[in-house]
């Protein structure tokens, strides 16, 4: 598929980016030519985001060079990016969001053109999407927003898109929609477009990528045709050896008394890890939110909360962006250490340091701002915040969005250890692999529980069976 005769869209020559003493990217050479579909992998903090920001022109390299063939800037060269952190304007309509990135769209009637263009792009990539281009983005679900963002990335916007960078595009999409996207990427590349595809889902990377680039500690450690990699080889190259999936089913059967029971039929016993599964957007997050709100008081924070919440949508309901890592962790335990209503600074620092080592937050100093961390490490902070509190029930709303394989293994282990100590976990996840870590799984369909699986029954097939309506509607 690769046509080495044509001029490269982007070429990086020994490009490096330093943030103060931190070498985010340490000399990377990469050429993207038309028709390329590059799978970019590496664990969080390896420099993927920085590399993307160099390619799309958002950052200038500290040394080395980044050259575009189709113009002087990334925009002129037709380089687009779709980010992992959703970056639409929530107060604008879908069509108006296209206007933000499509500067040539002006003059009377621009709204009509914008509507037609975004609708066409959505129709091409996600047939049957059902998104109204005139609806405001904050009325859409997270998956729909992600679809809109991808559609804007591929939309012509006055000139054809030549290179589209997709950073974890499928993290909030369910399997069917993700397949539509992968299909579109293949067609786009076959027609001479180029894609840089970043994903933690190895299956997707192998499905679309013609070439795979592995980043580790700011350097490219491997760059080969996708066919020359095996999954295991890829994971090894990234520097993380995936731990053998522990056989949790059947190892611990004795749980305490029932601590959670909702009207929907969701139950959990002390020390149990309960998974919520099913297709994204079928009411799992809402069920957890209802449970959390019913168990926590809005007026009296109290020193011993019954439940804590780990957010999956970090910018929206997780991270306190202006605070330090320390403050972000300690917010859940301020009440306990307080004396006469004053915060015990020493205890606060102790707790933060303890969790920094226990959960492996990658930072030199916990007083750094939280936003200095990569997405995966921010998520670790949120875990630390929840686990630091003594609450017996931990609710997790798809907490592994965009978290790398290594971090996931760390967190799985921590969850299992905490469960063994008698904490109860309610865990909604869009990834089957995670759900299989649970002792018991509730599968949701159309805002109702369609199946309850335990032990050896927790398999991908059973979950899929319960997620889809298999029989004909009578």
């Amino acid at each position, binding site marked *: 598929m690769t046509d080495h005769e044509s001029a490269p869209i982007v070429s990086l020559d020994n490009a490096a980016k330093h943030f103060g003493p931190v070498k985010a990217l340490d000399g990377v050479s990469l050429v993207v030519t038309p028709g390329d579909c590059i799978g970019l992998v590496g664990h969080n903090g390896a420099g993927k985001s920085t590399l993307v920001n160099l390619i*799309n022109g*958002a950052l200038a390299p500290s040394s080395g060079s980044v050259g575009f063939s189709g113009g002087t*800037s990334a*925009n002129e060269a037709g380089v687009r*990016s779709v*980010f992992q952190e959703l*970056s*639409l*304007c*929530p*107060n*604008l309509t879908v069509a*108006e*969001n296209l*206007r*933000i*990135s499509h*500067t040539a*769209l*002006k003059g009377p009637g*621009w*709204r009509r053109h914008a509507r037609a263009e975004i609708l066409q792009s959505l129709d091409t990539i996600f047939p049957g999407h059902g998104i109204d281009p005139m609806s405001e983005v904050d*009325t859409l679900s997270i998956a729909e927003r992600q679809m809109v963002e991808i559609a804007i990335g591929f939309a012509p916007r006055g000139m054809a898109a030549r290179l589209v960078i997709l950073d974890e595009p499928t993290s909030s999409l369910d399997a069917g929609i993700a397949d539509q996207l992968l299909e579109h990427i293949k067609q786009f590349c076959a027609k001479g477009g180029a894609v840089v595809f970043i994903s933690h889902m190895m299956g997707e990377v192998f499905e679309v990528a013609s070439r795979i680039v592995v980043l580790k500690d700011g350097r490219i450690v491997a760059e080969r045709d996708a066919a020359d990699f095996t999954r295991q080889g890829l994971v090894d190259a990234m520097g993380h050896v995936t731990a053998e999936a522990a056989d949790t089913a059947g190892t611990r059967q004795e749980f305490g008394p029932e601590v959670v029971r909702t009207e929907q039929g969701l139950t959990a016993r002390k020390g149990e890890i309960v998974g919520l599964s099913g297709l994204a957007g079928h009411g799992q997050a809402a069920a957890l939110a209802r449970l959390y709100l019913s168990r926590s008081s809005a007026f009296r924070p109290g020193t011993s909360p019954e439940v804590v919440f780990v957010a999956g949508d970090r910018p929206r309901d997780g991270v306190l962006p202006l605070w330090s890592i320390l403050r972000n962790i300690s917010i859940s335990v301020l009440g306990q250490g307080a004396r006469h209503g004053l915060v015990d600074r020493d205890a606060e620092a102790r707790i933060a340091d303890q969790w920094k080592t226990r959960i492996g937050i990658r930072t030199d100093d916990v007083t750094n701002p939280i936003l200095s961390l990569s997405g995966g490490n921010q998520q670790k902070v949120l875990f630390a915040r929840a686990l630091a509190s003594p609450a017996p029930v931990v609710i997790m709303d798809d907490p592994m969005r965009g978290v790398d394989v290594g971090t996931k293994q760390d967190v799985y282990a921590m969850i299992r250890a905490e469960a063994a100590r008698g904490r109860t976990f309610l865990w909604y996840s869009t990834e089957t692999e995670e759900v299989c870590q649970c002792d018991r799984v509730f599968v949701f369909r159309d805002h109702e529980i369609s199946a309850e699986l335990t032990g050896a029954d927790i398999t991908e097939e059973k979950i899929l069976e319960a997620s889809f309506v298999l029989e004909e509607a009578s």
Partner: protein
Amino acid sequence: MSFLARHRIILPVVSLTVLLAATFYMQPRAMSYFGLNLLFNLAVPIALATIAQMMIIMVNDIDLSLGAFVSLVACVTATILNDTPALGLLILLALILSYALLGAVIHALEIPAIVVTLGMSFVWGGLALFILPSPGGASPDWLRTLMTVKPPFAPMAVVASVIIALVAHLLIIRSGIGTVLRGVGGNARSVAQAGWPVIRLKALAYGLAGLFGVLAGMALVGLTTSADANIALRYTLLSIAGVILGGGEFIGGKVSPTGAVIGALTLTLAASFLSFLRLSSDWQIGAQGAVLILVLTARLIFRQKGAEA
């Protein structure tokens, strides 16, 4: 999403209609060309000031200097613009530019707008006192004529409000650049990523606020025929209330120009309505606040219902 949550303009319209109906019930004579003009006369500068405030709130900032700024403009209009029009015009232009500059400075240095504008309110107030130490001055004749014009069918105040709402709507909601400006309020980072110079956009938003602030001051002088350094101090809070009453939000770039104008009309009318109730003027400000709280409560309830649906 309920109907009301989707069409946030409905609540301001209903509020104004209810208040208007109550006013007409109390004082049927207000239901005339002359009566309406009298009721809404002073709403024109308030509406302009509300649009100015809306421009700032649109980009997630707040302007606490607007009242002092409008007062300063009124003083300039009633003295310098009246005596030497060319110099007066130049000064007003400079004021607009200084607003734009303020926006750029606030963005570049990342200082909270609330602090900067609070400080600037003393600067504007001082300048106003410097220009017009004691109440006085005179309105330029053309301005007086403009503000007392009697168009057919509807009184000036109503026609002017419609024009203000229309222009602001075209500028902010319909135009491309207005959309980008709202985008700055919604998600400045994504606007910057798309290649827009956010600092210039912020300067533009502030500059537009300055422009509407200048228009508000001029309209006020045209109505009152003289000025005073403290003439419009309460516009700061009135304009903020107007934006919020009209369906705007403090953050997130959610604003409605039409709603803002309606909000300004509602606030003006609330004052007249309370006079018709023969409420002592001591209680009026408090009662006006109560009206505001009532409307905002209604909005919150509808929004929550909308979220549940």
